[in-house]
């Protein structure tokens, strides 16, 4: 804000009012669809279409009750499945990525540059390339239709992006702190645990929150690996809902879409600042 303050001085009140009008207009156009979906989820079906109003004439929670009970499996099951997968993924990513990032940022070992270059290379690799052999691998391990193919890779630091994020952060921590710890007789594990991790809470939290949101929203992974409706995640549940209800039960579909967005919206509400700083400094795509 301070940099821009200089330019602001000659921007008069009228000018600034104009900017606010533009920004409010853009915000409204952007958010209207979301608000409309929220409003529609409280409307009876016949009121949804051809109606742009945000206020339901007759307010009803019916759609939520109908939607939650689901088609064959309750949405509660989908919700629980998503939650289990997302929480395990967060734990896996935070542990495995921070370990690798620490090794790359602070330790010396043979072949380090070689592995580091390969790690960076995986950032560019589209997942489609590894998709089919991975599928064959998990099929042979008998892991298809379990959560394992979705969760185990996270414990093996498969999201190299977070290694890179944490690597950058660890590198910024003053080396004097390690050196002091070494003089006190601490080894790498102790330094990692007692020096690096406590100082890296913002970066770890960014990685954790993005892992949660991306896993929660992931559609492709569950689409490929989960076949049984009782294993479905929220995203898959929503998709079956689209395909089978067709045009009949839009309000229930909207209601469950709102439900599917709630965890992400909650995280966004609480950690908005952290997420935005994470993007600005690391270029996470979001």
């Amino acid at each position, binding site marked *: 804000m301070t940099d821009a303050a200089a330019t*602001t001085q000659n921007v008069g009140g009228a000018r600034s009012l104009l900017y606010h009008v533009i920004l409010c207009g853009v915000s409204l156009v952007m958010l209207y669809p979301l608000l409309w979906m929220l409003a529609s989820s409280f409307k009876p079906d016949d009121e949804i279409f051809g109606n742009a109003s945000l206020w339901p004439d007759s307010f009803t929670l019916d759609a939520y009750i109908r939607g939650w009970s689901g088609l064959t499996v309750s949405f509660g099951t989908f919700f629980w499945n998503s939650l289990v997968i997302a929480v395990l993924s967060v734990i896996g990513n935070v542990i495995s990525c921070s370990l690798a990032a620490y090794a790359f940022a602070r330790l010396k070992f043979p072949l380090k540059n070689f592995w580091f270059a390969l790690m960076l290379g995986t950032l560019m690799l589209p997942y*489609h*390339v590894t998709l*089919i052999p991975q599928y064959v691998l998990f099929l042979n391990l008998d892991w298809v239709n379990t959560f394992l193919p979705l969760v185990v890779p996270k414990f093996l630091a498969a999201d190299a992006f977070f290694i890179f994020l944490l690597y950058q952060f660890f590198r910024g921590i003053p080396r004097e702190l390690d050196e002091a710890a070494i003089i006190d007789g601490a080894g790498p594990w102790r330094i990692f645990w007692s020096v690096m991790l406590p100082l890296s809470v913002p970066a770890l939290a960014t990685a954790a929150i993005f892992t949660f949101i991306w896993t929660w*929203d992931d*559609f492709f992974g569950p689409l490929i690996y989960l076949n049984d409706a009782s294993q479905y995640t929220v995203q898959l549940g929503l998709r079956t809902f689209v395909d089978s209800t067709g045009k009949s039960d839009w309000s229930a579909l909207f209601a469950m*879409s709102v439900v599917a967005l709630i965890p992400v919206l909650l995280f966004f509400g609480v950690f908005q600042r952290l997420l935005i700083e994470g993007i*600005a400094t690391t270029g996470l*795509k979001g």
Partner: protein
Amino acid sequence: MTTTAQIPLTISEPEKRSKRRGGWSRTLVSYSFLAPWLIGFLGLTLGPTLASLYLSFTNFDLLQDPQFIGLANYQRIVTNDVKFWHSMQVTFTYVILAVPLKLAFALGLAMVLNRGIAGLPLYRALFYLPSLLGASVAIAVLWRQLFAKDGLANVALGFFGIQGPSWISDPNYSLYTLVLLSVWQFGSPMIIFLAGLRQIPPDVYEAANIDGANKVQQFFKITLPLLTPVVFFNGIVQTIDAFKAFTPAFIISEGTGGPIDSTLFYTLYLYQEGFAYFRMGYASALAWILLIIIACFTAFSFLTSRYWVHYND
């Protein structure tokens, strides 16, 4: 926890011991940190990448062992696969329209927000929200509804007396609704642009003002050149992302890429070949072509970047 302290104590003096801590045990400790990634890299990335390359030269349907057929998959893709060329065309149209539009919006709004007006954090958060939600099925569901015949988009157009088409089910328009969805998510490049704009020292503009440069000149002579590294970064990230787009097209077309393949993104075609028809060798070849396209694009961007990206050092 105390791995290093347990090193054999054959040398009596502590100083020597600490020097000797290097070597094998130190390597071992380092590799114990690296182990999860290393196992994952070898087992889930490097191994599968090589396997995928091999499979791309085979006929493989999961049930029987892969049969080596040389370049036949690639040959068929290039010479005898209408859907491949069609999905390429769809994907390139999408990339060429969505990425520049998205970046233009992102930069435009970043510049408006960089005016230091009140409420910046609020606007920034509001504009960013769709980027965060964009990948989810719920948003694709919403989009499908917005652009249905009696959807919100047409209701809005109705206010201006325009009778809109049924966007999603009209092959002339369906792809553009997906482009619009991508543009709607301009928030994350916007935040990166905003961070870049903050780096430009205000005295550069003051000097330009004194020299009598107008706003347009200032934009093209100062803002844009100084921002080229950020444009470069955002351009690469967004383009690679756009090549990989999948979920919205899948949900909106119910997995078909329709109507009449108008939203058959490359990744959707790859998915169909691999997981609907179980032609896994063929799908592997498609994946390698995607990799080659992305690699060529990235290499090309880096090679040309020296002519237009200005680093301030």
